[in-house]
C-alpha cells in the first residue's frame, strides 16, 4: 500500500439514508486527486466521512496506514488533514485575522512563513484583516477558507467545491492558488466545475449513487467523451 489516504468499501448513513454504499479509492502522495460525480452522488459525504463528521457504517479509512474511521474529528485533523467545507466554513463573527489565527495550531516559523505566503497569494485578506469574516464577499470567503486550511503544515487538504457560486475571474484565482499549493501538499478535491478540475487534477475518481464507478488519469478522462456524458452529464 503506498497511498497517503485509502478508503476501502466505505459505507455511511445520514439518519436512515444509505448515502455511501461502497467507496473505494486511494490518494497518492503529491498532486491533486479529484472526486467527480453528479449532484447527490455522495462526494461531500465522502469528505465529511473522512473527517469524522459522519460515522462510517462499514469499511475502513486509512491515513498513512493508520485506521482513522473511529477517531473523532479533532484527532483526524491533528494527524495532518485540513478541510475546506462546501460552505467555506469560516467563522463569520471572527475577524479575518482571528479566523487565520484560530486555524494555526501553533505559531512557529513554519506557520508564520505559510501565513505570509497565503497573504501574498490573497492580498484581500490582509486588507480586511481586522474585519469580520462575515463581511467578506463570496470569493474572499473562499480565499480565507483555503488560506486557513493551508496555514498549517497539513499533509492532505480536502477541498469541497471551491468554485461554487463564484464569478469566473475569482474561480481563476482560486484555481491558481490550488495549483501553487499542490507543489507542497496533497489535495483531494471535490469539484463540479469540470474545466477547473481538469486543469488542476492529476488523477480522478467518479462517484455515482454512493459508489466509486471509475478511476483514472485526468488526461484520459478529457479524451473520453462517453464517460463524461454518462457520469458527469457533459457532452
Amino acid at each position, binding site marked *: 500500500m503506498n497511498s497517503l489516504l485509502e478508503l476501502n468499501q466505505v459505507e455511511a448513513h445520514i439518519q436512515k439514508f444509505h448515502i455511501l454504499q461502497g467507496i473505494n479509492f486511494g490518494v497518492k502522495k503529491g498532486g491533486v486527486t479529484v472526486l467527480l460525480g453528479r449532484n447527490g452522488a455522495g462526494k461531500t459525504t465522502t469528505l465529511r466521512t473522512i473527517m469524522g*463528521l459522519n460515522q462510517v457504517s462499514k469499511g475502513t479509512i486509512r491515513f498513512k496506514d493508520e485506521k482513522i474511521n473511529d477517531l473523532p*474529528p*479533532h484527532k483526524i485533523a491533528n494527524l495532518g488533514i485540513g478541510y475546506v467545507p462546501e460552505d467555506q466554513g469560516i*467563522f463569520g*463573527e471572527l475577524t479575518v485575522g482571528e479566523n487565520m489565527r*484560530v486555524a494555526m495550531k501553533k505559531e512557529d516559523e513554519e506557520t508564520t512563513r505559510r501565513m505570509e505566503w497565503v497573504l501574498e497569494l490573497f492580498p484581500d485578506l490582509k486588507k*480586511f484583516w481586522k474585519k469580520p469574516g462575515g*463581511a467578506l464577499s463570496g470569493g474572499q470567503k473562499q480565499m480565507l477558507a483555503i488560506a486557513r486550511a493551508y496555514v498549517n503544515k497539513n499533509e492532505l487538504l480536502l477541498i469541497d467545491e471551491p468554485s461554487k457560486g463564484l464569478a469566473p475571474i475569482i474561480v481563476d484565482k482560486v484555481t491558481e492558488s490550488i495549483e501553487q499549493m499542490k507543489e507542497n501538499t496533497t489535495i483531494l478535491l471535490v469539484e463540479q466545475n469540470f474545466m477547473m478540475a481538469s486543469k488542476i487534477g492529476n488523477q480522478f475518481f467518479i462517484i455515482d449513487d454512493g459508489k466509486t464507478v471509475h478511476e483514472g488519469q485526468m488526461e484520459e478522462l478529457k479524451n473520453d467523451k462517453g464517460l463524461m456524458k454518462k457520469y458527469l452529464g457533459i457532452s
Partner: protein
Amino acid sequence: MNIRNVEKSTWIFIIIGLLLFIVPFIITGRSMQFIIIQIFIFAIFAMSYDILLGFTGIISFGHVMFFGIGAYSTAIVMDRMDATVLSFFVAILVAVVIASIVSFIVGALTLRLKSHFYAMLTLALAGLFLVAAEKWRSLTGGNDGFTFRLPEILRDSHHLYVLCLVSLVLLFFGLRRFTKSPFGRVLMAIRENEARTESLGYKVLHYKVIASVAAGVVASIAGVLYALSLRFVNTGVFATDLTIDVLLMTIIGGVGTLVGPILGAGLVELAHHWLSGLSDVHWIFERWIILYGTVYILVVIFFPLGIIGTLQSKFMNRSIKGLRNSRKTVGK
C-alpha cells in the same frame, strides 16, 4: 509591556475605572452608594455569564448556583470563624475551590449534551442547590438565612465600595485578556460552529469545560461580594430569578462584549430602583415589572445585538463600507 502598544479602548476603561473611585466622594448618600455597589456585583456576575453565553454560546439556566455557592461560602466561613481579614480570604478561597469543583463536574458531565438539554439540566441542578440550602438548616439557616459579622475594615461602606470596584476592574481586565487570548478565539469559534472548530483540530468539550469553570469561579466571586454587601444570606441567592436577571443584563448590554454586561447591570439595577421608587407618583408603578418587561421587549426589538453590540456593528459596517469604497476608487 510597552505603554505605546496599549489599545485606546484600554486607556478609556482605565480612565472610567479611576473616575469611579471618586464617586463615593460625590455621591455620599448611603442608599445610592449601596445601589452602585450592587451594580458592580451584578456586573461581575453578568460578565461571568457573558463568558458562557457571549463567548462560548452556552445557555445555562442554573448559573446562579455558583453565585449562591460564593454567597453561602462567605457567610458560613465568616460565621464560623472570627470576623477577620484572614477569614475573608479563607471565604474567597473556599468559594473559588467549591465553585471550580462543582462547575468542572457539572461541565464535564453535561456539556456533551445539546444546548437545550444542558440548559434544562443546569436549571435542575440549581434547583437541587436551592432545596439543599432550604433543608440543611443547621448549616444554612434554611429559608430564613442568617446574618454574620464582617471584619472591621469592611464595615465601612467606602471600603466595601472600593473592594467591589477593584474586583470589577481586575476581573474585567482579566476576562478581557482571557477572551482575547488564543484560548478565547477558540471559544468564539465554538460559539459559531462546534463541528467546524472540531474539524480544525480542537477538542471542543475541553474548551467548554474550562470556560464553564472560569465562568463559575467569577460568578462565585460575585456571590462573595453580594453576601458581604448584605452581611446576610438566605436561599434567595439560589433563586432562578437571579439567572434570568443576569441573562437580561447580558442581552440588554450586548452579548460577547464584556462591557455590555456591565452596562446592562447598571441599566437594569437603576431601572429596578427608579421604576419601583415611582410608586409614590402613581399606583401603576407598583407594577414596575410590567414597565421593565416593556423596556426589555423594546430593547430586543431595536437593539437585537444589545446596546454595545449594536454600536459596535454600526461602527464596523461603516468602516467596511469605507474600505470597499476606497477599493473602488483605487480601481478607477
